[in-house]
């Protein structure tokens, strides 16, 4: 089951996050919903990401893959043009570069879709988007709920509601 608490301002939400995590709730069970990006101080609710790394990886894969294709095809069907060597970085470097960038872009977008959870199947229930409040959602079990509600209200939640699992 989940607990939802609505806060009217960022600071309150931040405080709540800290108290809750202080109370031993795993930060991965905490989610904050808002109509626009909510900026917490670093360390309050960080979300680790491998986006850059994976982007570079995908860039290397696609780039070298395309280069390999060019190399193979030009050897496979060797036609001399303009007295150029069959394979030369000068003649095909541009394509290598472009496809490396393409790899990077696709990688980034892919990772974005994954890390943002937009692609995941088992997703926790989400409140409707409201631009007047910040909603915080904590997953917990029945017995811990009472204590968490108290903590949240203390840290300035306007309202708190319980949400049962869909299951």
């Amino acid at each position, binding site marked *: 089951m989940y607990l939802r608490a609505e806060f009217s301002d960022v600071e309150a939400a931040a405080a709540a996050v800290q108290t809750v995590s202080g109370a031993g709730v795993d930060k991965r069970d905490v989610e904050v919903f808002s109509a626009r990006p909510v900026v917490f101080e670093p360390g309050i609710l960080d979300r680790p990401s491998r986006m850059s790394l994976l982007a570079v990886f995908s860039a290397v894969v696609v780039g070298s893959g395309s280069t390999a294709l060019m190399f193979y095809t030009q050897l496979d*069907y060797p*036609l*001399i*043009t*303009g*007295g*150029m*060597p069959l394979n030369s970085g000068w*003649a095909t470097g541009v394509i290598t570069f472009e496809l490396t960038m393409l790899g990077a872009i696709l990688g980034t977008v892919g990772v974005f879709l994954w890390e943002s959870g937009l692609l995941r199947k088992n997703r926790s229930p989400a409140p409707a988007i409201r631009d007047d409040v910040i909603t915080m959602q904590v997953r917990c079990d029945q017995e811990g709920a009472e204590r968490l509600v108290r903590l949240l209200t203390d840290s300035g939640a306007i309202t708190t509601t319980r949400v049962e699992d869909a299951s």
Partner: protein
Amino acid sequence: MSEQLVPVSEIQSTDDNVPRWGMAIDLDRCTGCEACVVACHVENNIPVATEDEAAMGRSSHWIRIDRYYEGTFPDIKVKYRPVLCQQCDDAPCEPVCPVYATYQNAEGLNVQVYNRCVGTRYCANNCPYQVRVFNWFDPEWPEPLELQLNPDVSVRPGGVMEKCTFCVQRIQRGKLDAQAEDRKVGDGDIQPACVQGCPAEAMAFGDLTDPESKVSQWAGVGRSTQLLGELGTKPKVFYLEKSD
């Protein structure tokens, strides 16, 4: 001088049985009579450009006579030279084609594969000699003119680039004849239509790798030059300049 004129190429075949076709044109013999131009049209099924087309600069000639007046009357001279595809070793037209419609074959011919061409016309832009001819429309031959068409040469559809082939069909024929009589192709056995027809016998065609061939002999003399040779295209057509 002559060293620079002998066509050297990275792609020069190691197998010395493979010829490298070249041409030499003696401008001192040439009278600019344009017999070569018509001979080429007859041989290669080149469509006739109507007056309107010609007015748009769409005459199709695989070989043409460039002429420049020099000086003023009465001491005026005219420089003229037959210009056809120079069959460059390092042809600028080849690498720019995205679909390999034009490339250099083993015998040094700058081949144009009509069926592959999609008509980007990049090759024509990049040919400093402007010898590439584009088919702006599908060609037409009012009946019964089509009876004359040479069955050895394909008729090109619209939207396709074409150019002088050194009469590759005649080269092929020459090689097959030689093969059938199992002998080597002799110098002069193969003559493109323009060379064959030239009344002043101003054109020589043959194998540049054979130092004894007429074309090599001609290409070697002091008067021999290459058109726009400074561009480094390594043409295989040599011009023997006029001189008295």
